[in-house]
């Protein structure tokens, strides 16, 4: 069974190569069906492997087996979380391909199948990152998925904003990746190993009885900075709204639904296998760093989300906010925190991808993503409006959505005053989405006034991505969000699913400590409370439009998002310094 692991990467890449080689000779339908078959086949393989992932599988690619404990081969690792991420990536790619069935212009004659091929490369790279067992391959797949994502973000190269967003995305993420590579170089210098588990053991034996030293700290900061740039934690997040606002909708579904979460997954994986031993970074320091950055991310994302009028940017900031919540749950380093983050990521992927899919329908129907201009115009799209509202309450964590279950388990894990951050961040982001639903699909409240602020992107003149403006919504564009929402609901509603996820995650992460993940009265009440708060906030915003005009204290925060790539690079360096400062005390004390 474990010999099949590399196929998770190889199958999509070969499919993409096939499409690039033969795409121009195929009719479009054949190219798309090939894409479905390859992507669906990989998804099926990932699910089969996932069902057999206990005990975890290890595969040395090309039979470069270790000799006497030493190896220079490539190792891939298939445990519950790794294969779970690979399955999520593949299923979401399948959904995005189905959504884009009728979506794009007929591509130019010589590039038929190019979009599908890029999506397959993206899928293969993300699967590869999920199952990579050594750090350098994680870096290579990280870069492969980044490069494909830049290309997909700038796919509509005739649009001025799309290429600008893609360039910002490219520069910031590449810089993060080079930082990560420097960190890997330092780890190799210390241990002479590249496989994650062996680096971890090497660090422990090199440290002896002392703790980690300055080199370990530098390597930790560099590697984690790269991963946090991908995860869009504050202050590394500036690329995300720019990229998500301009990327084609099917790409947004993948970027927001799973690529950003892979950054958080990477932090979890790297800390757990490399830095968690006595020679690494002490747990208290990681908790301090991740919980601080996570809370900051959740708050910043929520505030920025509330004051957006460009619908895709609003959803992008909601992703930033939720990433903060994932990082906090992972940062407490308990089995419950890991379970909560895993369930939250699963639920969030379904809900957020469905919301982006609904936003794409608006874009193609009206050529506009501006909440103010669209006021009341989408009354005829009842089904889309209902799905948008359902997605909003899903974001708020209404039981029994998977997001609600993940949030409830995470809240129990972090405990205490940090629960407030969870309730507030999910209520504010869901309130903003509900406000959009009420204004755009129901036309509630007065028409918002044109403020004409210099500080915002309005999204009133966007180009539709379909051949012309849609007169009726294709079935695929309605079915996909419905299926995604149903899946997000199933994550929380199917009895025993939470425990299943918890068992898989704990087996990989916490050294045998099992926690059960199910609904508790406390969690249900908090989920209901944040949903009620979201509805109240949305009601206030609709009846009193001045509530959504940014107050003076939020203006500096919005000014930071300047659209200038140099500013974002400066913030990245600043963030790395902060991360180092947060993790420093343990190294000094050791």
């Amino acid at each position, binding site marked *: 069974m474990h010999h099949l692991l590399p196929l998770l990467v190889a199958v999509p890449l070969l499919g993409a190569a096939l499409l690039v080689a033969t795409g121009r000779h195929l009719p479009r339908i054949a190219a798309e069906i090939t894409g479905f078959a390859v992507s669906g086949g990989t998804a099926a393989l990932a699910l089969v492997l996932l069902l057999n992932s206990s005990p975890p599988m290890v595969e040395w690619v090309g039979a470069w087996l270790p000799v006497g404990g030493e190896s220079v081969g490539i190792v891939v690792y298939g445990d519950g979380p790794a294969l779970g991420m690979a399955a999520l990536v593949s299923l979401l790619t399948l959904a995005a391909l189905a959504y884009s069935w009728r979506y794009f212009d007929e591509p130019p004659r010589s590039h038929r199948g190019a979009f599908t091929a890029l999506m397959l490369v993206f899928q293969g790279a993300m699967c590869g990152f999920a199952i990579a067992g050594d750090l350098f391959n994680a870096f290579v797949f990280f870069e492969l998925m*980044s490069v494909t994502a830049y290309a997909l973000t700038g796919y509509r190269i005739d649009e001025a904003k799309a*290429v600008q967003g893609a*360039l910002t995305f490219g*520069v910031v993420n590449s810089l993060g990746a080079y930082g990560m590579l420097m960190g890997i170089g330092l780890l*190799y210098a210390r241990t002479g190993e590249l496989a994650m588990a062996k680096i971890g053991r090497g660090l422990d034996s090199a440290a002896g009885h002392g703790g980690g030293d300055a080199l370990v700290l530098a390597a930790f900061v560099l590697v984690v900075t790269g991963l946090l740039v991908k995860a869009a934690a504050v202050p590394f997040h500036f690329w995300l709204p720019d990229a998500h606002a301009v990327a084609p909708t099917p790409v947004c579904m993948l970027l927001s639904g799973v690529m950003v979460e892979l950054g958080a997954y990477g932090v979890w994986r790297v800390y757990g296998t490399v830095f968690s031993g006595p020679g690494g970074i002490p747990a208290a320091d990681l908790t301090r760093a991740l919980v601080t950055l996570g809370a900051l991310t959740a708050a910043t994302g929520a505030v920025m989300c509330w004051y957006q009028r460009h619908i895709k940017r609003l959803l992008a900031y909601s992703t930033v906010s939720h990433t903060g919540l994932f990082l906090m749950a992972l940062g407490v380093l308990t089995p419950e925190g890991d379970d909560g983050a895993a369930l939250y990521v699963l639920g969030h992927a379904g809900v957020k991808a469905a919301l982006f899919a609904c936003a794409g329908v608006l874009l193609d129907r009206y050529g506009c993503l501006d909440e103010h201009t669209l006021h009341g115009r989408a009354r005829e799209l009842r089904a889309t409006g209902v799905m948008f509202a359902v997605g909003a309450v899903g974001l708020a964590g209404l039981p029994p959505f998977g997001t609600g279950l993940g949030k409830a388990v995470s809240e129990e894990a972090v405990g205490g005053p940090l629960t407030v951050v969870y309730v507030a961040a999910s209520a504010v982001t869901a309130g903003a989405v509900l406000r959009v639903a009420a204004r755009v699909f129901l036309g509630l409240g007065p028409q918002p006034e044109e403020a004409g602020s210099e500080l915002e992107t309005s999204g009133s003149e966007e180009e539709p991505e379909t051949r012309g403006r849609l007169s009726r919504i294709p079935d695929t564009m309605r079915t996909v969000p419905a299926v995604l929402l149903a899946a997000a609901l199933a994550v929380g509603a199917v009895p025993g699913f939470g425990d299943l996820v918890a068992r898989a995650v704990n087996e990989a992460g916490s050294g045998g400590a099992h926690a059960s993940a199910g609904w508790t009265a406390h969690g249900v009440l908090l989920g209901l409370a944040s949903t009620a708060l979201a509805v109240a906030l949305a009601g206030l915003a609709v009846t009193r439009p001045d509530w959504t005009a940014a107050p003076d204290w939020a203006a500096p925060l919005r000014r930071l998002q300047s659209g*200038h790539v140099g500013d974002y690079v400066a913030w990245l360096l600043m963030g790395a310094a902060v991360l180092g400062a947060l993790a420093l005390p343990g190294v000094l004390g050791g």
Partner: protein
Amino acid sequence: MHVLPYLVAAYVFLTGCYGLATSRNLIHAVGCLAVCQSSTYVLLLAVGYRDGGTAPVFSDIKPGSRPVVDPVVQALTLTDIVVGATVTALLLALVLQIAKRHGTVDPDELRELRG
């Protein structure tokens, strides 16, 4: 092991970052990103250096007869160069397209996406 190459790597990385942060031209910015990446080559090769070592090519030296530098980091550096070429090419293509659509390559004038 001498500490100088590590200091050079850090210096080159930070120089590239400074260039990125203050750049007034996107082509220059992509170049600065390539400078940042060059620092990773320096670091990796410094990690693999052995005093008196020769290139790890065993066609004309007997294995074990004399020290060789670490071939693993050289393979990593080669992979890194390939990755870097891809990224640079793609980013330059995007800059070209930005120049066509916006009529400028000055990041100070590209402020449509904000807030």
